[in-house]
């Protein structure tokens, strides 16, 4: 939101539109790609979260087990080699997709504000 040209906000108010209208018609649409990009990066960051998840939600199979918790569980099993490899691959793919999506959205925002 800080990257939005403040003149656009002033122009909107000069055209007789109040703060709230200006926020919903100008500020929010122009910052939407940035907000989505933040959400995607937040999701990607959550893929690596271990401590908070295990403390708050626990490690209940098929209910609260996330990828990092499942990795930890399989890693401590003798037969867990295969699932660990698959989960690592899924984590890498998800992280890469999140990075691409975030970069795409940020570029879109820069383009939209030009």
């Amino acid at each position, binding site marked *: 939101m800080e990257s939005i040209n403040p*003149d656009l906000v002033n*122009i909107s*108010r*000069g055209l*007789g*539109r109040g703060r709230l209208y200006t926020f919903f018609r100008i500020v929010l*649409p122009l910052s939407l790609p940035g907000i989505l990009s933040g959400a995607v990066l937040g999701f990607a960051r959550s893929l690596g979260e271990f401590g908070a998840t295990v403390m708050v939600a626990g490690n209940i199979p098929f209910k609260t087990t996330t990828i990092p918790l499942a990795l930890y569980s399989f890693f401590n099993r003798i037969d867990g080699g295969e699932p660990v490899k698959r989960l690592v691959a899924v984590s890498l793919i998800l992280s890469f997709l999140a990075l691409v999506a975030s970069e795409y959205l940020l570029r879109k925002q820069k383009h939209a504000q*030009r």
Partner: protein
Amino acid sequence: MLNVDIYKNFGHFVLDVQFSAGAGISALLGPSGNGKSLVLNTIAGFIKPEEGYITFGDKVFWDSAQNINMRPEERNVGYILQDSCLFPHLSVRSNLLYGRKKECRYSLVDVVDLLEIGHLLDRNPRRLSGGEKQRVNIGRALLSNPGLLLMDEPVSSLEEESCWKILSFIKKVHKTFAMPILFVSHSREEVEFLADQTASIEQGRIVDIRKKPVRLK
């Protein structure tokens, strides 16, 4: 009639300006960095002075003695900047209609015809030239039904040919809609072409007011 008597100390710069502008085209003339844009921003309500008053007709925009400070959206003033500042996510048509008031004296067709922008309505502002952007900008301000148009160096970022075209459009807008205009410029030629009254500003103070523009030697 616009009456301005404002004082504000910015620390490194003091703005102390008094002038009146009538129903014609008035100009604030002076070099960059002498407070011209600050005066416009103050009239539009984006900067609050410390002392004085700003009135337009029977409206009091700001008055330190009466503790009145009208919000920018209530002042009914069209503001046109040097860089056209069209909303980049809206089409030209949506930009034009953004501030449209029901009681507006002119229709979209009137404004579009006058400014010759009918063929641009469905385009994205990014695909317009500098001159086209500025015409849309003027149209958008007109459709918000302003009582006064403020223009901050409206042609300084344009090439010479577009510059004179836009100045002619500004004259046409004033003549057709009887719209009072206060514009700011550092160019004596532009002022001579447009203004009925010119106030020269230096170091935040009005140093000269002329009813007729200064003739170039």
